[in-house]
């Protein structure tokens, strides 16, 4: 548990969201809120619908029922571009980096919404396009410093080891200066040292920038240590929602993880 911090009013409200693919029910009437500046964890066995939930929040999937309220705007669905414009950024379970580009270019794409020079100005280069490019480069370098990846700036991301790729993906999400950051298993496939680094980064993001974080994580130690509140999903339904201590002792959660017959 983390010491008391400056947690604000709810910034995200998920209300009765149901999602199905054909006959497969991915989510069933999930409702919860996320408060500003907090670190919210979503846990649950594999196939519980956690990634689908993030995809709904961020507009990649359209729920059949339910609404999402972000920054006081309620909607039934939105497309990913809108979600990004509103200040939601995310990382993916299977690393969605652009393999043909260097680390620097990948992170620069994160600034895409902040760049507004027309393509004609860009073709000219000198003038407003260059100024904008250099300004955004400065911001990106701040993120690179923050995540300590200066030494691989110019390396094509396909060549990096898995742990570094995850860090670059986080950098790309951070470069957008988001209000809400959705992290899908940011520590999967990492060894202990890498996990500790990643935890440190996530906490620093929350401390320094005040970014609200929602993360999906399997490592219980991590979840208990860094999150303020935890949501537990099982077979698309929420079975618990509270502080880490409350959730740890909840019978339904214990059953789900130990595999009691439904």
């Amino acid at each position, binding site marked *: 548990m983390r010491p008391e911090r400056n947690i604000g009013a709810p910034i995200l409200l998920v209300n009765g969201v149901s999602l199905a693919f054909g006959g497969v029910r991915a989510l069933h009437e999930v409702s919860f809120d996320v408060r500003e500046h907090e670190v919210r964890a979503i846990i649950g066995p594999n196939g519980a619908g956690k990634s689908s939930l993030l995809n709904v929040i*961020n*507009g*990649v999937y359209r729920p059949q029922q339910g609404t999402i309220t972000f920054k006081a705007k309620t909607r039934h669905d939105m*497309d*990913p*571009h809108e*979600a*990004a*414009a509103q200040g939601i*950024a*995310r990382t*993916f379970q299977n690393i*969605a*980096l*652009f*393999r*043909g*580009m260097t680390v620097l*270019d990948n992170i*620069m*794409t*994160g600034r*895409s*919404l902040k*760049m507004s*020079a027309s*393509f004609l100005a*860009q*073709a*000219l*280069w000198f003038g407003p*396009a*260059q100024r904008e*490019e*250099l300004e955004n*480069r*400065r911001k990106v*370098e701040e993120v690179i410093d923050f995540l300590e990846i200066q030494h691989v700036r110019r390396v094509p991301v396909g060549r990096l080891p898995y742990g570094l790729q995850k860090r670059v993906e986080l950098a*790309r999400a951070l470069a*957008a200066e988001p209000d809400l950051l959705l992290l899908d298993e940011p520590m999967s496939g990492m060894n202990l040292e890498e996990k500790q680094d990643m935890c440190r980064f996530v906490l620093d993001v929350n401390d320094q920038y005040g970014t609200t974080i929602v993360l999906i994580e399997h490592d219980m130690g991590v979840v208990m240590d860094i999150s303020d509140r935890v949501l537990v999903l099982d077979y698309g339904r929420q079975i618990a929602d509270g502080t880490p201590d409350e959730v740890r002792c909840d019978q339904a959660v214990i059953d789900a993880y130990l595999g009691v017959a439904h």
Partner: protein
Amino acid sequence: MLYREAGQFKSTYAEDQQIFPIRQDRIGVAILLALAFVMVPLVANEYWFSAILTPFLVLSLATLGLNILTGYAGQLSLGTGAFMAVGAFMAYNFALRLPWMPVLGSFVLAGLCAAAVGIAFGLPSLRIKGFYLAVATLACQFFVLWALQKIGWFSNHSASGVITAQRIEILGYTVDSPAAKYLLTLAIVSVLALAAKNLMRSETGRSFMAVRDMDVAASVIGIRIMHTKLLAFAISSFYCGVAGALYAFCYLGTVEPEAFDLDLSFRVLFMVIIGGVGSILGSFLGAAFITLLPIFLNLASEAIAHAFDVQISHAIQSNVELIIFGGLIIFFLIVEPQGLARLWQIGKEKLRLWPFPH
């Protein structure tokens, strides 16, 4: 020894973002441009201009266009010939029907027309990907050529759609010698190549590559997929359109729609593959390679004919050329799928260490 970066520090981001960050590269490019603009016109003869240099430049421009679409943005297109045809015929029409318009203006307008056609036939890319998209561009290729032939207006109602490009007059000076046409083409291609490089290292280029590599992730970041794809088609077709206009005005002089058939589209695609997908330099290398190959083969077969005192018929020659052509493509795809541009890069890396082994 010569090619070292030691001592060249960058202290501002502006310096770091240069097109040629290494001083030796800058010197090299300056020399190349000086040679191209000054030395070559003094030294080369007519044959070189009209059969080698000018077509090389024109095709480089078309290759640049296709590279932007297929190499950077990942949208496979087999319709390059059609876009060039639009450029050629519209430039002819603008020069014909708006005689007050300077020729360069006609070229730009022709390019814009090609861009419009590109956007129209690029619309399917919003739903279709990969090979299927290639088929959509084939539809464009066949339909456009048919239209240019059937609709008399395009060729001013000449028989079988043949057009003869008008004389080019710029600021009172007539551009009609091969050397002058070469210089005009060189100037236009240089400017457009620079613009392309600037575009590809800016946000436009990054969003193209993002859409190419993983479009779902790109949309999550906030890149508008539709906008990006259509922009890629537009810019690419503009370049191909201008290339087509140059093809007619500065290279062939007289063209008909068949000159821009599927064969040409494939040739340009090969230039992209061999030169290097997603590389501006590669476009030039690929175009040079494919333009020079038939000439090289010609010389080789003449040498063999002399050496062994045999007559090699034209038919045999062209068939061997086909085989070598196809073989080279397969060879490149196996050995270096990233093309000549990558080989060039590897060469430069080795050059940095030379003469030391590591």
